[in-house]
Structure formats: C-alpha cells, structure tokens
C-alpha cells in the first residue's frame, strides 16, 4: 500500500481532496450509529456518554411505531418502483415508435421536465391542486356537482397520491434511460422480424422488451436496494408535519427526522437509523445474490 502511494504519489495527491470528503461526510457520521447503544448526552459527546446496551432497541421494538413506518416505507417504495417502471417502459417503447422526429424530441423534453424541479416546488403544486378550500381538484369537483374531499385529512388516498406524484416526477426521467437502451438495439433484429411478417406490437413484445431486460433489472435492483430508504425530501416536503396523514405516509426517514429535530431524542433516532442501514444492506446483499444466480451480467458487485 505505502509502496503504491510512493510510486504514484501525484495520483494519490489528486485523490486526496475527494477521499477526505468521502471520509468526513460519509464515514465519520457512521460513528453516530454508536449513539444507539449509548445514553447520549450532548455535553459529554459520543465517547463520554455512558453505554446503554440495547435499551434503545428494546424501546424501539416495543412500540408498534417501527412496524408502521417500516411497512409504510416498503409499501410506498414498492408502489413507486412498480408503477414508475410500467409507465416509464411504456413511454420509452411508445416514444421509440414515433417517427415524426420533432414531436418525438418535444415530447421527450416535456416528460423529462418534472425531474428538474425541487420537491419544494412539487409540494407547492400539490397543495395548489389538493387544498380543501380552493384547490383545483376540489373546485373542479364542486363545479361538476360532486362532493369535495378534504385531501389533507384523508390518509387513505395518500399512497395513491404519492405514487402519482412519483410517477409524474420520475417516469419521464427513467424512460430516457430505457429509450437510450432501445436505441442500442441493432436495427437488424427489427428488419428480419419484419421480413418474417411481424407487426409492430409483435416486434415490441418479442424484440424490444426482451432486450431491455438487463437495463430493467439493473434499474429495479438499484431501487430495491434502497427500498428501506424513504425519500425524505419528497415525503417531508409534501406531507410535512401533518400528523393526520402519518398512518399512511410516515416513513423511516421522516420518523428519524422528527425524533431528532422535534423530540431531540438522539438515541432513538440513531437506533432507527441503524436498523434502517442494516436492513438496507441485508436487502441489497440478498437481491444481488439472487441476480448473480439468475443473470450474472446484471449484478451490481
């Protein structure tokens, strides 16, 4: 190791800033996980605070809250993954079938646009659409004589609403990746299929979709690997501290945040975060293992 550093000292020097940032902002915070085993006192710091054993975990797993936030996290992420995959694939395949280049490029640009705005802006738009008194949706419902819904106090609709928002924001973005993969498919496949009399639907079904499989697997794996991580920016941006919606929208990340910032409970917050990190790691190892068996070329590592 040292010999390598001496030999390539200018290369290691180039890497030094980046590596320092990695250590400081990714590895140093990991010591925070220790707090889960401590009776943390700010004045005494991580090392000075007395050990508390597994007390925090006992408290965490005693209440039902952890089950609720875990299930919400998994359920919402599953909805996001499945529906964004379906819509993005459909968009990509359909965009590829469009022969009028101007319209194709325009449509592609427009569906990609929502990816570029922040969750704060999305949150604003969602509020404009759904707020009870003068949201666009309720105004429209009232105009056609239907009953209005007070969306922000009806948790049952939110898995659906959040999924719709997720698909709106990311389907276009993901479709671009799929579209690029479709572009990489050799035209010869389609040509010989046409000679055999295959119509466009058959070509999509027998050529495009099977050849997209590796890309689909990689992207889905990346998402599944993060299935224990809720999108804090999205959920907290849109739902915020609206407790009425927590039964269906509170995910591990928002729970950790509230524990830390609103209750100042460092120990509990760490316990949940460590539980999340460990589960996340286990999930990705399992799925990568499965993929290694099924389709070795698509594995992540």
């Amino acid at each position, binding site marked *: 190791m040292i010999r390598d550093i001496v030999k390539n000292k200018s290369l290691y020097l180039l890497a030094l800033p980046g590596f320092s940032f990695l250590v400081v902002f990714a590895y140093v915070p*990991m010591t925070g996980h220790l707090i889960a085993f401590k009776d943390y006192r700010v004045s005494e710091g991580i090392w000075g605070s007395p050990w508390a054993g597994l007390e925090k975990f006992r408290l965490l797993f005693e209440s039902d809250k952890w089950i609720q936030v875990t299930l919400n996290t998994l359920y919402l992420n599953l909805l996001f993954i499945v529906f964004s995959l379906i819509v993005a694939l459909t968009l990509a395949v359909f965009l590829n079938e469009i022969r009028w280049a101007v319209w194709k490029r325009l449509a592609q640009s427009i*569906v990609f646009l929502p990816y570029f705005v922040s969750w704060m802006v999305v*949150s604003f*738009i969602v509020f404009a659409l759904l707020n009870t008194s003068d949201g666009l949706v309720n105004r429209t419902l009232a105009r056609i004589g239907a009953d209005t819904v007070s969306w922000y106090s009806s948790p049952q609709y939110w898995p659906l609403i959040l999924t719709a928002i997720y698909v709106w924001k990311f389907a276009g973005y993901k479709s671009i990746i799929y579209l690029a993969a479709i572009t990489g498919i050799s035209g010869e496949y389609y040509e010989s299929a046409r000679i055999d009399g295959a119509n466009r639907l058959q070509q999509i079904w027998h050529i495009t979709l099977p050849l997209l499989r590796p890309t689909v697997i990689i992207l889905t794996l990346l998402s599944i690997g993060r299935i224990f991580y809720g999108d804090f920016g999205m959920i907290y941006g849109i739902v915020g501290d609206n407790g009425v919606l927590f039964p269906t929208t509170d995910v591990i990340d928002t729970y950790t945040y509230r524990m830390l910032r609103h209750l100042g409970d460092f120990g509990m917050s760490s316990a949940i975060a460590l539980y999340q990190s460990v589960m996340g790691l286990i999930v990705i190892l399992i799925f990568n293992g499965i993929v290694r068996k099924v389709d070795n070329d698509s594995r992540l590592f």
Partner: protein
Amino acid sequence: MTEVEAMDNTVGRRSSIRQDTSWPEKGFHWFIHGFIAAFALISFIPFWLVVIGSFTAEQSLRTNGYQLFPTQFSLYAYQYVLAGKQIATSYGVTVTVTVVGTLLAVLVTSTYAYFLAHRKVKYRNVFSFLTYFTMLFGSGLVGYYLLIANWLGLKDSILALILPYVLNPFYAFIMVAFYRNIPYELNEAAIIDGANDITIFFRIIWPVATPSIATISLFYALVYWNDWWLALLFIDKHELHPLQIMIRQLMSSLDPDAYVGVDVSAAMQIPGMGVQLATVCLTIGPIIFVYPFVQKYFIKGLTIGALKG
C-alpha cells in the same frame, strides 16, 4: 454523435421501410400518440398553471382559483416580491451555493474519479469499494447532524449548504465510466515527455473530458439549486435561506409579509397567493430557461451512469 442524434437515425432507418396500414396497426398507432400526448400534457400543465397564476391579479386568483388562461393580467405579485428584501437574499444564497458548490464538487469529483479509473493505481478497487459502500450503508441522520452542526460547527453557515454534497459517489462512478473510454495512449505520450500525473490530468485529460465534466457539472448544479434538506437541518437565519426554503416559509409562515420584507411605508396591498406563485416561478425560471440547452448532457450522463456505472 450524441444520443439524440443516434435515436433520430434509428427512426430514419425504420421509417424508410413500408408502413403497415392494417386496422389494428392504425389503432395502435393512435393509441401511442394519445398516450404520449396525455403524459406530456400531465407533465406540462402544472407548470403552466403556476406560471399563468403568477401573472394573474390576486382578486381573480381568489375567486376563480387556478386557470388555464389568465382572466386579469397583472404583474403586481412580481413587483411585490421583488420590492422585498428576502428574494434578493435568497437568490444570492442559492446562486452562491450553486456556483461555488458546483465548481468545488466538479474539481474534487473529477480528480478523485480519475484516480479510481487509473490503471496505475494498484489499490483502486479497494478505494472503489470504500466509495461504493457509502451508497449501500447509510450513515444515519444523527451522525450527519452532529458532524455538521457540532463537530464542524457549521450551523447557520453557508458552508453547511455546500460541503456535504461535494463528493457524490454516484457521479464519481459516472466520471469513472467516462475516463475508461479515453484511450490510455494519451497518457503514455505525456509520460515520455516527463510530465507527472497531475500535469497530465489538467493538461491532457481535462480537455478531452470536457463533455463529461459538463455533464456532471449540470448534475451537481441541479442538486445544489434544488436542495432544501441541508437548509432545513442547518440554517435558521433568514439571511441564509435559499430559494427553496423561501417557498417553504411562504407556504407555512404565519406572517409571510414580514418575511418577504417589503418596506411597510410603501403601503402596498399584499397579494398572498401571488407572492408564492411569483417566488416559485422565480425559482424554477432559470432551470426552465437553460433546460433546452443542457438537456442533451443530462441524457448522456444518465445513459452512461445507468448502463455502464
């Protein structure tokens, strides 16, 4: 050849072949166009409503809500927001964070990724793994918070909005994929001339890698421009609120008008909804304006990141 051009070529090649005109084919054809048009409309209409709303008089907004076409054109909301102090402050913060953050992040990431990609480094796989591992195992909010707020003492400091995002492992791996495509012979010629690796990097590799550096610059710029998480955690002072937090404050604050910071003596009428809409438009405006020009770089980066990274 860019990705977009490549796609168009495929289209050209395919359309030269006879079109099927049977009924199911035609139906499918219309279904495709219908679906794409519908999704494009859904993607676009929210932006349209917000932009139109921001140019509509407050009174009309209150009575009619959001509309596809403005009934009472007005620039008052913009005049009001721009008369306040907060918008200039927040713009300053967001622009500073984005510019400084992006420059720093690109410099640090591109050099680090070059190291990860360089075949002379014997232990590059070890370092790649150390980098990759941070994507698999989260550090947790508590440690992150303590690090930045207590240990580094960056609470209410603009550095708290910049430093944490300087090295994004995912973008580093995108760069690694780019570097691998550069022929190694470029290096060798320079080594014979006696140049060291730092000189080689900045004199030879950097110019060749310009397109990829442009790509990750845009990724980083978008992250910095759109972030509000760091500000939520670490910034309490109004003078350091980025634009995204300004929107949040306007939506949740009890006294948004004091927040906007218009001089009371001006005795202006307060356009509550208009202020929010105008601020949102001022926040997404720069993105929408540069979007048509930078889109292709994003597509390139995404493609490489997803398919090779």
